């Protein structure tokens, strides 16, 4: 079943084209990552899918609804989705449990408040004021508020920006738990390792267009790209690109009669491929 189906989506702000014709099909139960540099159109796409903005053209179906649906039908639709947008600084004078409980009241079938607080690792902070939380804790509260309604579909817009490595690990494990519980997740990120770690499929987006949709392992022909074998030859460092690195190594082993000096075999990293795809744009 398709949870999200998008065809020919475009959106401009004045002269700036944020989204320049995007097609997407996201299946139930998968974690789908939109990977791209800042300004590529990730947030605009998510905000259209989550019903915050109207597209200029194209068709959008999210859980079988047009996100622009208003009134009671719109409320029932929002009851089935969860949204974690980019950084907010609201709710400072509420306690963690207070605000999570309050948001749970908006939904027809909310999750258990204390279980959600536990799942995002804020049990020790449940009676603290939100303004006393660290950046990472705040972000986990954002996720708690996004999942309290027990959504079928969760939007996560750059969820781990500004996290330290440990907090990111903990966060990733939370997202995997949600997937295991059957939630479909659309994630935007500009971190390659995050897409590689979490996503079933990745769409690389740059300048408002999707360059490729693939699994992280197959992205950019990564699995079939030539391997590079390098070693220390008699006249310095040598290297050879090959589809059959084992054959090259066997040949070299015979030449050297055993151990090959400084042998290294590499394949292009996801980062190499990604940078090539987005045309050398950097963060």
């Amino acid at each position: 079943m398709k949870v999200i189906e998008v065809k020919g989506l475009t959106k401009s702000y004045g002269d700036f084209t944020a989204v320049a014709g995007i097609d997407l099909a996201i299946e139930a139960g998968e974690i789908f990552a939109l990977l791209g540099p800042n300004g590529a159109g990730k947030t605009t796409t998510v905000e259209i899918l989550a019903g915050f903005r109207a597209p200029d053209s194209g068709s959008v179906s999210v859980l079988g609804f047009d996100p622009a649906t208003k009134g009671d039908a719109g409320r029932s639709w929002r009851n089935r989705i969860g949204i974690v947008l980019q950084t907010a600084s609201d709710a400072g004078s509420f306690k963690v449990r207070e605000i999570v409980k309050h948001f749970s009241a908006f939904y027809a079938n909310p999750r258990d408040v204390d279980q959600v607080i536990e799942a995002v690792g804020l049990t020790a902070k449940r009676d603290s004021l939100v303004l006393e939380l660290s950046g990472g804790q705040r972000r986990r509260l954002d996720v708690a508020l996004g999942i309290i309604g027990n959504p079928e579909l969760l939007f996560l817009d750059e969820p781990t920006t500004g996290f330290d490595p440990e907090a990111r690990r903990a966060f990733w494990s939370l997202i995997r738990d949600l997937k295991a519980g059957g939630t479909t997740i659309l994630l935007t990120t500009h971190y390659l390792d995050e897409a590689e770690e979490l996503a079933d499929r990745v769409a690389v987006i740059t300048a408002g267009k999707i360059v490729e949709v693939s699994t992280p392992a197959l992205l950019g022909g990564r699995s079939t790209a030539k391997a590079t074998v390098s070693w220390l030859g008699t006249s310095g460092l040598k290297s050879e690109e090959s589809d059959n690195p084992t054959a090259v190594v066997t040949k070299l082993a015979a030449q050297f009669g055993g151990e090959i000096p400084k042998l290294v075999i590499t394949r292009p990293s996801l980062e190499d491929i990604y940078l090539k795809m987005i045309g050398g744009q950097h963060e």
Partner: protein
Amino acid sequence: MNKVPGTLKLGLLRGQMEIIQFSRQKEAVVFTIFFPVILLAIFGSVFKDTIAPGVTFSQYFVAGMIASGLVNTGFQNIAINIPIERDMGAIKRLRGTPLPITSYFIGKAISVLVSMAVQVIILLAIGVAFFGLNMPTEPSKWLTFTWLLVLGTASSTALGVAFSSVPKNGRGASAIVSPVVIILQFFSGVFFVFTQLPGWMQQVAAIFPLKWLTQGMRSVFLPDSFAAQEVAKSWEGGRTALILLVWLIVGLFFAVKTFRWENK
């Protein structure tokens, strides 16, 4: 699938959260509640003479302070706080949930009403204790007081939400909203006896709700004999209700029409 919770029930919950949020901002609480008291102390000490037989300036002034409390707590606070909430992403977050926008508005109105009730009780208690304030005894006056408070809260809240679309962001909001309120207070007979103001000021004030709220509150706190000294030689209760109702409808129309969940 169960139905999402009702709009009114969520509105009451929003009201509860708004009150919790307000009550934790200690400076704002102290300022909101004691500023009218401080003004009463200043004006009560400066103007010691009576305006009419049995009507002290303090008595006249309390009516104005309660009326302008409605404008401060409703219109001013809301028109300043909504742009700040937008800056912080609070409204955008709510917009992404099944919470109806009407419930959000109801929550604002409830917090205004509760805050007003607290302000009024403290102002009246201190007025009676220290400034010789006479409390009305007729039930009909308290009935008038109640509908003025409810209708004033509703229209002030709606107009505050409507006006919250004018400031571009939270930082500039206060500078845009506060002068409007202060000028309105001077024009509407809050700080001075209304009939002593220049005619053109009276006419400008008569367009806006504060003049009518103030006059309405005078009909509660001043003896009926004073009605003869009003501009129309009467309290004009019916006209006051009508004008507040019109402003409520205008406010609701623009509140719904222009409401934004994020700043431009």
